[in-house]
């Protein structure tokens, strides 16, 4: 793991060329839970900066009920996004739940996504949630920090919907809630928390006929009820991976918002505090305040990774 600076540099060089093995090994570094990995991530980010590669990707978060067909959609969208431009590169990050008992995980999204193996402009990576709540993994944000400098679009597929699925909002620029045809009572049940989060609703499996039409109308009225007074009520895009319906519309929506970026500093602050909380708990957060707080640490060190490196943790914890 201890990579020399020149070896890291060579890896970055190849990753910029979208060599899959190089990208994969850098992702492994950005997922690395060891403290000594932080310094190497700082180096990688510096090497990318030096080559004029700031964060540039539009980050789309796809969340939704289990079985709604998120993975299949990611596959279809990814293929279309690169067809529409000859230079665009797309990365997909799919998160699956970690077993509470064993700590292991089955990452099964690849069974539904088939990107052509020879296509460098598409990269797919599975990630375990590592017992994190909130729909994404502990390492999702750190990896997005890398991918957003290498790719033009990053698609994040969350674990599946729960009550606490709000972190996808923190990490992405635009949130798509993917649903499948279901009963009206199920929609009522969902309405509580999740209805306020998404920018776009995607009603997948729209080929399911009458059930899909019923769901569409119930959903439409539920959204208007849950989010009154919005000048632009969120769209519902109806899609079907079988017939291909609505997929272009969904891709259009992403392209239209490709320059819409949410505040990077707010995002970095949220995940820095979260990282410290995960690693060192309340004591760690108190120390962060004594060191000037997340914003000060971030601005004086430039990047999230440098701020992680500069943060002085509780001594006993190390």
């Amino acid at each position: 793991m201890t990579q020399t600076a020149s070896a890291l540099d060579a890896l970055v060089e190849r990753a910029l060329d979208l060599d899959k093995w190089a990208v994969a090994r850098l992702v492994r570094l950005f997922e690395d839970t060891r403290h000594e990995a932080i310094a190497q991530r700082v180096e990688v980010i510096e090497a990318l900066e030096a080559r004029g590669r700031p964060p540039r990707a539009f980050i789309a978060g796809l969340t939704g009920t289990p079985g709604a067909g998120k993975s299949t959609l990611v596959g279809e969208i990814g293929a279309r996004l690169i067809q529409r431009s000859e230079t665009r590169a797309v990365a997909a990050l799919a998160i699956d739940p970690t077993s509470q008992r064993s700590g292991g995980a089955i990452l099964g999204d690849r069974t539904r996504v088939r990107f052509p193996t020879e296509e460098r402009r598409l990269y797919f990576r599975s990630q375990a949630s590592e017992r994190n709540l909130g729909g994404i993994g502990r390492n999702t944000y750190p990896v997005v920090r890398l991918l957003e400098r290498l790719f033009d679009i990053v698609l994040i597929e969350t674990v599946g919907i729960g009550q606490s699925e709000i972190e996808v909002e923190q990490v992405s620029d635009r949130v798509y809630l993917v649903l499948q045809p279901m009963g009206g009572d199920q929609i009522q049940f969902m309405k509580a928390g999740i209805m306020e989060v998404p920018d776009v609703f995607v009603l997948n499996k729209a080929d399911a006929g009458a059930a899909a039409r019923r769901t569409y109308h119930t959903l439409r009225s539920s959204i208007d009820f849950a989010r009154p007074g919005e000048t632009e009520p969120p769209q519902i895009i109806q899609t079907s991976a079988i017939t291909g319906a609505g997929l272009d519309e969904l891709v259009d929506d992403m392209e239209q918002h490709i320059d819409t970026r949410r505040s990077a500093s707010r995002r970095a602050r949220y995940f820095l505090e979260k990282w410290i909380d995960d690693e060192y708990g309340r004591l760690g957060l108190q120390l962060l305040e004594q060191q000037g707080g997340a914003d000060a640490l971030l601005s004086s060190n430039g990047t999230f990774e440098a701020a992680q490196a500069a943060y002085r943790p509780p001594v006993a914890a190390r």
Partner: protein
Amino acid sequence: MVDAAQERQTHLLYDAKGEPTTDRPWIFRTYSGHSSARASNALYRSNLTAGQTGLSIAFDLPTQTGYSSDHPLAAPEVGKVGVPINSLDDFHVLFDQIPLEEMNTSMTINGTAMWLLSLYVALARERGDDVSKLQGTTQNDIVKEYLARGTYIFPPEPSFRMIAEMYEYCLDAVPKWNPSNICSYHLQEAGATPAQELAFALADAIGVLDVIRERGHVPEDRFESAIARVSFFVNSGIRFVEEMCKMRAFTEMWDEITSQRYGAKDPRTRLFRYGVQVNSLGLTEQQPENNAWRIILETLGVTLSRNARCRALQLPAWNEALSLPRPWDQQWALRLQQILAYETDLLEYPDIFDGAPVIESKVEDLKRQTREELARIDGMGGVRAAVESGYMKGQLVRSMSERMSRINNGEQIVVGVNRWTEAIESPLLKDAEGGIFVINEDDVRETVSALEATKARRDPARAQAALAALEAAARDGSNMMEPSIECALARVTTGEWADTLRKVFGEYRPPTGVEGQRLFLDGDRIDRLRERCEDFSRRNGHRPRIVVGKPGLDGHSNGAEVIAVAARHSGFDVIYSGIRLTPQEIVHSAVEEAADIIGVSILSGSHLALAQQIMDELKRAGADRHIPVIFGGIIPKQDHAALKDMGIARVFTPSDFDLADVVGAMLDVIEQQPVGA
């Protein structure tokens, strides 16, 4: 002549005239076919001469999954597990000198069943046979393909439509044909308990009949004829008393369902007609000669009870866990059937269990469990919903995991596997080929050149028009049988027929059933494995990551699934990439995921070719010295050294049944690897 006044004796069988009689034996079959149409034709003719009374055709995987022999995915599989069929010309060779009108032909074919039936009808037409006299079965059970066997192509809706269209077509045109054969066989192989086997198979049959009824193409007054054509293909395991009771439960419940749900009046319509292949799952690689005894006992389960006796029987070969059977192995299996039917007194009696209270109670218990499960599936919206939601698959993966756990912890005794493992080596394994069947590469070349010749000879305009008509029928919802028969006559190839329908219907990927499963392996050994995984994570900054995949067209996914669940249970992150993958796709997954190890499951006999392709791909990606590869499956000992030479780090076979040992060995392999960033 029996005097009318004379009382009939309970232990004798009487014919319609009141004469004492004996039963005719069931149909003896041997599941066979390999190499090429010509080689298989020779095999069938010699089997028929040896006293076999029906044909059971095994097709190779490309034929089963709708690829012609010249497709890249097909290349390593041509002729491996059955006969390759590319066009009607191959069928002419396959059935040369075999009288179609007299033959009862069973075809183990599912995703492409409509195509193979069309070829059979077209063959009869060209040979001048009476199509209405054709007899036999196309397996055509898509549910068990999704759940266990893996040779599906299309999504559930068009698949069920094709099954229904075959029933609708056969009703008048080929009235003695069984358009589909509901298979509980593969469900047991995938781990189903007797009650699950009963319930899932019956739910499947209900699904087929419901679709036919909803479509409304079969007139109401002829619906009973459609019911009468539903037949079953059942498994028989080693617990042979319970298996016999299962068969009685099947018989009674089918009678109940056909009369209550569909109003069938004729008792003959309500008969549970079934064929059997006895269990392969329980056959062991260790002390394989013991399998001969297992097969005999399993045969008793489906023959002892006259009321629930099978119509046709095929037996696996004693060495099936080692390799594909040779002709001698098949002959030995056939001899068992002949001894049972002709030497013993089995066929002289009425049902010997009628009125036995223990049997009745056991049958009632199975029926009760089955009704509960059927109600659950009905509540979900029927068999299609229960497949699409992953419910049925999840239940099977769980049962299989539980079975493996019981064998692992010694609760379930398997002789030679977890008890009495010390044994004298079997002399049966000492002959020249070491008990292994090897395929001749010349046969593959012969098949591919026959395909090229067919394409060169045919009228291209007729072939194109036939395909266009097929596509039009697929789109507008009209019956696709006649257009498929015209495709056959026009020398359309298997790949062209399937590709046309893929274009219209798309390809399906069913739920894997692996998610959310637990393995009941708790204990010190699992705790130690979890500690090793945690320790690995601390030292390497990530959990051990394995890519589990199944290359090629073979879809028996149970082995790969059990390994995936066991690894997750021990603390691995498992990237399960499913079945029917090219070696390129497996390596691509491992590279993108920065996996620590690749685990490949292979049962088709193509391990040498696939190993070479995988190692070449890894080298091309620059990851060959970073990601070790392990193989598991039915891989003969003779090939282990060659695989090691190619760079395969470990080879696991069915004798490595201890999952904790397997996961431990995977960790050993990873730890031996120089760790990269």
